[in-house]
């Protein structure tokens, strides 16, 4: 191939490279010039046929042209690659507004969530979790808890019985426990102080089902018995709990009250987390009653064989439904037991 021919091949090649529309077309062009049988490759092979004096010149020229074609191919390939990729991406575009495939994951019942939250706070304070039977002896549910025989809670209108010897309460009457407090006695019977336990559980009262009553509900009870436990310790413990449960800004107020198995006793209010004590529909006067508490009555300690002069204790108990209702704005207790999927999914 003569020098002019080489130049015209080059121009022809550059022109077709420029007009190539796809990477595939470009590959065809490359093969036709630079492939095994391509024009430039052939020109190189034919160099030997040229007169000796022309060979270096034409040889250099062919190599130069080859490089130029290669460069042109590379730059065109890059151009085409970009736009083809762009077109490809465009074609693959999805509707990002279609819903994603969410994994189907369930939830714990709200009452479990609230119970777990309470337990978690007390585990952090060094408590362990204890449980007891739901069908309980009168002895544990009432008698050992210093409840007088004629206390209204012991009547068949208030408490479900499964075994009752006669009109008067008997230690071995069996009933559906009306609170988690009998577990206090069982724990103390089984161990010596120090005792720090938190007791979640299901309890029963003979109330017909309506928005604010349920024959079945849940409590969490706490008990600490040790040397030198004071009312101040009870107050401090409940403050830690209230802040952890309802928010750091919460205040706690203890009002003297009466329970048979604690003395001194208190009802415990937390400053309203809705209105922050200004007074609103949830709280009325800025305070929300959340639990009952007190120092374990010496009679109860003596009943389990402890010496009330050397150990003292505090106990507290709260209704899980009540706390869940307050915290989540639920006004009908029946929702907790209907297990409507629309309710369960919300929490």
């Amino acid at each position: 191939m003569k020098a002019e021919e080489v130049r015209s091949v080059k121009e022809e090649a550059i022109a077709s490279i420029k007009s190539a529309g796809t990477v595939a077309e470009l590959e065809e062009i490359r093969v036709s010039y630079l492939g095994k049988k391509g024009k430039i490759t052939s020109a190189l092979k034919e160099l030997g046929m040229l007169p000796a004096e022309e060979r270096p010149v034409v040889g250099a020229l062919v190599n130069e042209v080859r490089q130029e074609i290669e460069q042109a191919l590379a730059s065109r390939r890059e151009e085409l690659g970009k736009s083809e990729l762009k077109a490809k991406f465009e074609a693959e575009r999805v509707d990002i507004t279609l819903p994603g495939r969410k994994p189907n994951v369930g939830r714990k019942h709200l009452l479990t969530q609230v119970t777990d939250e309470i337990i978690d706070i007390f585990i952090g304070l060094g408590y362990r979790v204890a449980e007891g039977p739901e069908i309980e002896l009168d002895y544990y549910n009432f008698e050992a808890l210093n409840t007088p025989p004629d206390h209204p809670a012991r009547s068949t209108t208030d408490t479900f019985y499964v075994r009752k010897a006669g009109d008067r309460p008997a230690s071995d009457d069996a009933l559906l426990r009306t609170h988690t407090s009998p577990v206090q006695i069982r724990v103390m019977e089984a161990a010596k102080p120090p005792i720090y336990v938190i007791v979640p559980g299901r309890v029963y009262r003979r109330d017909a089902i309506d928005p604010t009553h349920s024959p079945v509900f849940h409590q969490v009870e706490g008990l600490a018995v040790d040397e030198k436990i004071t009312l101040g310790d009870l107050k401090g413990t409940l403050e830690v709990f209230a802040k952890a449960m309802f928010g750091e800004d919460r205040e706690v107020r203890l009002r003297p009250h009466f329970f048979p198995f604690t003395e001194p006793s208190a009802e415990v209010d937390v400053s309203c987390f809705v209105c922050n004590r200004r007074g609103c529909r949830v709280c009325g006067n800025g305070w929300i009653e959340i639990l009952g508490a007190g120092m374990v009555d010496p009679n109860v300690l003596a009943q389990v064989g402890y010496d009330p002069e050397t150990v003292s204790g505090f106990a507290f108990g709260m209704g899980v439904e009540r706390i869940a209702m307050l915290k989540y704005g639920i006004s009908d207790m029946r929702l907790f037991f209907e297990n409507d999927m629309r309710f369960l999914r919300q929490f």
Partner: protein
Amino acid sequence: MLVPFSWLKEYVHIELSPDELAKRFDLTGTAVESVKYLDKELDKVIVGLVVDCEKHPNADRLKVCQVDIGEEELRQIVCGAPNVEGGQVVPVGLPGARLPNGIELSRAKIRGIESNGMICSKSELGLGEDAAGIMVLDSTYEIGTPLAKALGLDDVVFELEVTANRPDCLGMIGVAREAAAITAAELKLPSTSVMEGVRPAAEMASVEIKDPELCPRYEARLIMGVKIGPSPLWMRRRLEKAGVRPISNIVDATNYVMIETGQPLHAFDFDQVGGGKIIVRRATEGERIVTLDEVERLLLTDDLVIADASRAIAIAGIMGGGYSEVTDRTVNVLLEAAHFKPESIMRTSRRLGLFSEASARFEKGVDPNIVQFASDRAIELMRELAGGEVLKGEIDVYPTRIEPRNLTLRTRRVNAILGASLETKEVSTILSHLGLGVKPASEDAHLLKVTVPTFRFDLEREIDLVEEVARLYGYDVIESTLPESSGKRGGLSPEQRMAGVIAERLISQGLFEARTYSFMGPQDADNMNLPADSAYRNAIPLLNPLSEEQSIMRTSLLPGLLKVVRHNLYREQYSVKEFEVGRVFMPADGAILPEEKRMLGIVLSGRVLGYEWYDKEKGRRFDFYDLKGVVTDLVERIGIGDWSIMPSKDPRFHPGKSADLLIGGEPAGAFGQIHPAVQANYDLPVEVMAAEISHDLLIEGASLERFFEEIPRFPGISLDVALVVDESVTNEEIIKMIEREGGDILESAGVFDVFQDGGIPAGKKSVAYTMTYRSTERTLTVEEAKERQAKIVARLQKDFNAIIRS
């Protein structure tokens, strides 16, 4: 206990506002349920005079009244009451008034006639039940004055919650004593001087207590020649504010003094007391009495009665008899002030279902030494209100005087319980404010000797005094601390942690936790398709259930969960996936308390997914394998090593689509499709997959211990085979065969396809398996794997008569 502020202030000087006092009560243990400002409820209700009253031109039953309310012009008011007439003094609600019954008044046109207010009925004003007509007021009321003022309602009433330990606060003086203690004020008791005649009462009447245990004290006084009539306005008002209906001067005097002192009193028509004899005795066998409420009551020999010479004239401490009651014709009155044993009153009152203000007080306990005070006070009031002559002296039978209690209190003990550092002097001051006698013990300056008057009989032990100190010192000033103990090791037990793992796993499987009632009904056993001898039928019945459906303790979680499924499916919830962990109750041989077992219940019903756009099996419903996946994933996750399943005979399930779960070879529960009959019994529109497994056994068999297993370093080779076998050949049989033939280089084998269609002969099915071969020591060659595969295939052909499809 309703406490009118004005009445309370008779006994104690209070400078606090009603709200401040209420707060103080609250923080010292007397819970205030409400503070009612009586006048606020009657804001914009004015005393008016109906000057003119004409028929409404457009309505037969309405009248147009011109009312003078002390303004320059008369107000025109349309009134529908049948009893409205000109000349009446009436309560007029002005526009803007918000009445106690919730009605808000405004100017209105009624049938074309302008009406500028409303003439109100008693019920609209919350002053009574009468809603039939307007309230007509005393004509002496001044026109234009606010009604509240005219009625003496510019007062505040506290509603106190009196706890079981403080029956002394069921009387105004007790409340006043408490108010005095918490405000450091002085208590002023009313005078009890009685203007007596010269005739001695003892000559006219006698008292005999036959049962001093049930009646430790009985005092009678006599007043002769009374004139029965209404009480004066001030007394009627006070009684009404305290929630007591005024009746007559004599009866009102007894009620007034009961509210004042907490001591119930009873007035007998003395002329009906046979022989002038009061005998306090137990009822005789078969004795009957007609009480004030005109009901005849049969008495038992445990009941205490007040009798005259011939018969019972009252049920002691509960209610008088109709025959001896004070009436308009009564002239001579015997006043009873007595002390009864609380337990006796409570028992009789509950048995008869008969409750009164008196029984409510007696059953909680009354101060035995207030009897004389109350008796003197009431008899003098009677004399003042009804005239007559009080006979000289009281007939007071009080065989064994009940004395004040003596207690000791250690300051050290107070401080140890409260976590405070009070001085003995402070403790002493606090207790004195409560009316207790306090003096330091001679032997120890930090020991107090406390004399507890009988009005505070609730104070029996040192700890009771500690509580009194605590509440008056103030819970709010006690410093908050945390227990200092080295003995605390918080945390969950391994079993409790495992319960958490189980719940978490089910939740991650898409199940929602449910909580159902612990009861079921006898009909649930039938509904669950249980045979007569089924253990599930052996439930513990409640002695006093609320209803038949909730009359026994559950022996299974499934009835409750099936009701949950139904609840949801009938409320547009097409996919129900729930589980419950709860207790079931089975009688335990030889033990009083039953066995409580914790069970795991699972229900899956309806559609697997909703109608998601990516769901290629739209509308597919949960089937056996969805449930089996949940169950087996759980047992694997919690590391139960030895578990298996076998076909179940549990009658609650579909016999062909259910399995028993065995842990360590022992039955631990069953799962599968609910039997179609059970499905129908619970009115379930689609099939339900359910499981009931012992949660206790799951936890017992579970283990979270794991040992690291080397990750394979050499590549594996997977080979597939598809075969046609008899329908009856199970996956388990095939897998076992493959595993046996596969030997050491077979890492795993699993089914990846199962189908039956036209291409497969009837009674046969096509199944496909993939086997993975691997060596832990070297790279396996394809030839080795293929050789082993061929061996397996040959065995399958031989043993299962399998036809190889590929």
